[in-house]
């Protein structure tokens, strides 16, 4: 279907003021990572024995790969549900996913205390098939490669390697299929991780074995939201034609996912009789309420025929949903996580700066590719 739409680099100056600002943030992160590898995790992070996972894992991997689900849900929509009209959205979404996943994988290595044993994950003799982490690790690694292959046609187009592109497109459907399968697996496994954490997870998030369902629904919602968010930002920031008319088509799916999420989430809380904890006035209770409000805003916006027509309300709904999905994962993995024995955790300034730097690198990469490579649809393609 790709030949129906034409893509083109948007051009323009690469080195702009925002570009320099983001580069500075990225540089700070790189310097701090050098410190981390020279003096160990303790020099940079606030991690301890009770909280071996901090913001690097929970933001860069758990939330970050959720944000990177745009490529996944669009592949699902365009190729599995055969909705070809959304094709112009695929390339930028794939690009964001590629950055999200490969930097998430990098984040995993950075966060590993004994990173030099990392390669053992791929050694069949050392693999523990009862481990959820192995599933997540292998899946994320494989998906990063698949994303790269899915993105390869863009590179071939840029360098006019038409022969290569033709060859690749003949077998691309295999990788697209794998690219839909893998995130379904590891995104739900993120929920299985919570099951494995057992009683350390607050009752508001430690559901009756439904966390994988909640994890995959939030992943899909995050994926659709990031497509709307990224498209809106490109319209405003890069002066691209509005994609609101395409985004509107996604609303039905998002709304259905939201309804499903609320039914499962609240039904589970009622079934287990722990909903009262939400009004306990504790940090966890209040964060739960905030999470619910953030999920409710998009449901209200998307249910109103009037608001849905306006791109700015779509953006509000998308941002609210992004924050809701991120907060759900933060709540389950960090804020509602209590290992006992008096352990507490809050990210250090340096940890935060590294995560901010990684986001900066993602945006820098995105800007570089949309300006130099044929990622975004040509301005006249759908005018």
């Amino acid at each position, binding site marked *: 279907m790709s030949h129906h739409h034409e893509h083109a680099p948007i051009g323009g100056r690469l080195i702009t003021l925002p570009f320099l600002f983001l580069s500075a943030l990225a540089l700070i992160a790189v310097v701090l990572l050098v410190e981390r590898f020279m003096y160990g995790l303790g020099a940079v992070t606030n991690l*301890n024995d009770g909280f071996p996972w901090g913001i690097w894992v929970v933001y860069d991997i758990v939330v970050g790969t959720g944000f990177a689900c745009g490529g996944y849900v669009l592949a699902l929509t365009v190729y599995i549900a055969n909705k070809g009209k959304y094709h112009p959205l695929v390339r930028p979404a794939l690009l964001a996913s590629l950055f999200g996943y490969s930097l998430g994988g990098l984040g995993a290595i950075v966060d590993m205390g004994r990173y030099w044993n990392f390669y053992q994950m791929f050694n069949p003799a050392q693999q523990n098939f009862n481990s959820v982490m192995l599933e997540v690790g292998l899946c994320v690694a494989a998906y990063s490669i698949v994303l790269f292959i899915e993105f390869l046609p863009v590179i071939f187009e840029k360098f006019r390697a038409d022969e290569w592109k033709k060859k690749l497109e003949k077998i691309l459907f295999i990788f697209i299929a794998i690219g839909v399968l893998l995130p379904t697996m590891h995104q739900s496994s993120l929920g299985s991780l919570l099951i494995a954490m057992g009683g350390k997870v607050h009752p508001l998030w430690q559901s009756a074995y439904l966390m994988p369902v909640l994890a995959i629904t939030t992943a899909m919602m995050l994926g659709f939201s990031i497509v709307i968010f990224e498209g809106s*930002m490109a319209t405003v920031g890069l002066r691209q034609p*509005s994609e609101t008319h395409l985004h509107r088509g996604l609303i039905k799916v998002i709304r259905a996912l939201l309804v499903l999420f609320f039914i499962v989430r609240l039904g589970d809380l009622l079934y287990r009789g722990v909903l009262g904890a939400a009004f306990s006035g504790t940090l966890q209770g209040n964060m739960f309420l905030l999470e619910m409000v953030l999920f409710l805003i998009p449901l209200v916006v998307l249910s109103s025929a009037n608001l849905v027509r*306006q791109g*700015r309300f779509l*953006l509000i709904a998308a941002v609210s949903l992004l924050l809701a999905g991120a907060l759900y994962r933060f709540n389950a993995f960090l804020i509602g996580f209590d290992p006992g024995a008096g352990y507490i955790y809050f990210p250090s300034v340096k940890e*935060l*700066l590294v995560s*901010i730097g990684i986001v900066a690198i993602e945006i820098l990469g995105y800007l570089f590719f949309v300006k130099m490579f044929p990622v975004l649809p040509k301005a006249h393609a759908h005018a």
Partner: protein
Amino acid sequence: MNNNELQQVAERLGVSRRTFMKFCTGVAATLGLSAGAGVQMAHAIANPRRPAVIWLSAQECTGCTESLLRANHPSLEHLILDLVSLDYHETLSVPAGHAAEEAKQHSMKENWGKYVLVVDGSIPMKDGGIYCKVAGKPIVDHVREAAEGAAAIISIGSCAAWGGVPSAGPNPTEATPVDKVLTDKTVVNIPGCPPNPYNFLSTVLHLVTFGTLPELDHLNRPKFAYGRLIHENCERRPHFDAGRFALEFGDEGHKQGFCLYKLGCKGPETYANCPAVEFGDVGGGAWPVGVGHPCFGCTEQGVGFEKGIHQLADVITVTPPTTFPGIAEPVGQGVTPGAAALLGAVGGAVLGATAVAVKQLGKAEASEQSDNDSQS
């Protein structure tokens, strides 16, 4: 052999068929054999022709017999006595005096070359062996006589296996282990004071079922039971590696269940399966180290009854480092003003960027709307 016969054995033993099969599977597991071996064992026990056992007691305290009888399962003493035909045992025999001696002679003649000889206690060799006599004869003569027609010889307990308590300095009776008396025979050693009854039962059941002895190490101890150091399987091992030690009985570390190495635990130089099999069939860490007492190395020659109870063990595998990580792990610090400010700034940037984009989108759409209106 069918299930009906297994049922009959179970009834004879006064236990359910299920309990009986569980026991056999448990023994097979202790030996490191497959579950199928448990079924084979069940059938071997069900065989009406049970092997005869002659049990001789030399310089001993009857502790080994006690530990076999005092196993927690009410059915176990039935099993012990029912899986073999115990034809002679000084403590357990019904006949006494000449009648007991006669029964032994009768059984030996009847089962010549087929019976199992079990010896507990060490053999006194000084002054012609006169320090332990049974039926007017030194015990060493009884042992040599019975060994002649034995299919297999088992030394149970540390006394029989390597000398044990009676051989401790100055060893006034010249207490000698059985295999030093019967130098021309294979003697299986099951040391321990007392040994775990399962190590004995498993060895005998292996013999009964397969007709062969389990694999033995260089000291003729069954490898399944004495193949690894206590230290290697100890539930307190992580405390050793982390440098968390009890330094006195009842101190904070002792109460927390820390490693007992510094109280003289001999686990690092003693080979036995105590941490895995435990004692008394009650589970839950019911073995010396599990209940807070250092291992004193009862199974190991040169350790038990020889080294001081609170003397430090020689660590055979990994020598402990001279420095250890601290016992008080940092539990983390709360939010710092800098981190809170940074996080706030990120939140502000996200909301600010969204607000600006929302505004501009609104503007763009308004103009687009008017464009469309003018077109149509």
